């Protein structure tokens, strides 16, 4: 589907966003800027609001307060064309188990109105290492194979903003390494990448920025030490009621201009 130029964007800005479900507050006053060519890790315990944040970024969830801007436009202003720029690999894999790998990809290629869909599907099957299982139904695949297929489904339309929710689940070591390589390639291609994960070892050294979500509140992780140490330190600090608020990410291994979080 040809997209208007305005659908292209270099930055996603979350400004003072809160999200409430009934009486439960999933996100509270979250602000975050995600720029092209960055991998941002969203860390935090279960129920912290990570999936809600990804849902908001994906345009599928609307904020109760605040706004998310893609370039200079909100999701509502940009309309359906914006969704062609978003790829989302969620914890649930968004595949039809009764369809074959090829049929799943062809279905989504059709929905996205891709040019040369057959070629794109063959390339995606090859990238997933499933070329020889292309016509097998997904139901018979292992979790790792499904995960690889779902990754290719999420990237089939070359999205600008790529969202991952627990992408390392069910992957063996080799598949994890392949995914990390893929993430680096996406970063080199100046995609905006946001991933929520508990797998700190897998993403240590990969992230350009790491933020912690805890009880719906966002804070930046310290930039010194291993990711696990920084994560634990931030959790402990949060538990003592003094979350690390670090709008300036220009120090340590997180590059300057990476944006701010509070």
């Amino acid at each position: 589907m040809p997209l208007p130029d305005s659908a292209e964007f270099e930055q996603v800005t979350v400004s003072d966003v809160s999200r409430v479900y009934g009486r439960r507050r999933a996100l509270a006053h979250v602000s975050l800027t995600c720029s092209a060519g960055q991998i941002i890790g969203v860390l935090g315990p279960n129920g912290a609001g990570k999936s809600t944040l990804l849902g908001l970024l994906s345009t599928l969830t609307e904020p109760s307060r605040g706004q998310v801007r893609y370039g200079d436009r909100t999701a509502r202003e940009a309309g359906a064309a914006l969704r062609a720029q978003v790829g989302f690999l969620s914890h649930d894999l968004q595949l039809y188990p009764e369809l074959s790998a090829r049929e799943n990809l062809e279905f989504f290629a059709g929905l996205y109105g891709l040019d040369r869909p057959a070629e794109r599907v063959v390339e995606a099957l090859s990238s997933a290492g499933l070329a020889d299982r292309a016509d097998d139904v997904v139901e018979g695949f292992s979790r790792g194979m499904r995960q690889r297929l779902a990754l290719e489904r999420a990237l089939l339309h070359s999205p600008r903003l790529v969202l991952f929710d627990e992408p390392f689940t069910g992957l063996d070591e080799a598949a994890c390494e392949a995914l990390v390589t893929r993430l680096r390639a996406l970063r080199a291609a100046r995609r905006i990448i946001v991933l929520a994960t508990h797998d700190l070892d897998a993403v240590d050294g990969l992230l350009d920025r790491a933020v912690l979500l805890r009880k719906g509140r966002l804070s930046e992780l310290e930039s010194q030490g291993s990711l696990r140490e920084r994560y634990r330190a931030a959790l402990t600090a949060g538990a003592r009621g003094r979350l690390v608020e670090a709008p300036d990410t220009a120090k340590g291994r997180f590059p300057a201009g990476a944006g701010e979080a509070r």
Partner: protein
Amino acid sequence: MSGFVRVAWLVVRKDLRVESRNKEMLLTTLFFAVSCVLVFSFGFVRGGQAVEGAAAGILWIAIAFSGTLALGRAFERERYHDALRGLLLAPVDRPAIYVGKLIGILLLLAVVEAVVVVMVAFLFQAPLFQHGWWLLALLSLGTLGFASVGTLFSAMLVRTRSRAVLLPVLLYPVTIPVLIMGVSGTAALLQPEPDLALARLWVSLLCSFDMVFLTLALWTFEPVMTE
């Protein structure tokens, strides 16, 4: 092919393909409808003679109950593995997804109705085929009205825990007029002297209801699916 039609067709084709592999919805819906007609036939047919006027009601009860079963599962495939999120994230007119799902349900119910009509005609000695075109019009329009609302409610309830209970609770009060029109129109055809003028009136009313239901469903599907 326009974008809207293309997307609706993709969804229909996908649903038909999945159904052709597991036949889950077809078999359960058909089995339920056939059982329903059979059970009623034991109660309403005495000495080879059916109770007068029962056939029309039983035909539509079988359609409504089995239709509810099918509608309850209409978005289950999308719920498993959260494929619904993948669908909603696609840069398409979301009402086209609704139309695709609706057509899939209508095709399924058409198969069920083909079997049920023959069964009712045979077991209740009802002259259903005497005015076949009128019956076809009543069934098509009645099913469209029932399924258009049901598909929307099924989509609305896909994320709720008690959707199996809520669907009939929401669906029947809204679609009761459609079912009454279907029964009344069919009963008019099954009288000893078929009342075609009355059947025509019910067909016209069904057309009006369908237009309202479809318009509302297409209009509300997008906001309903946004969290």
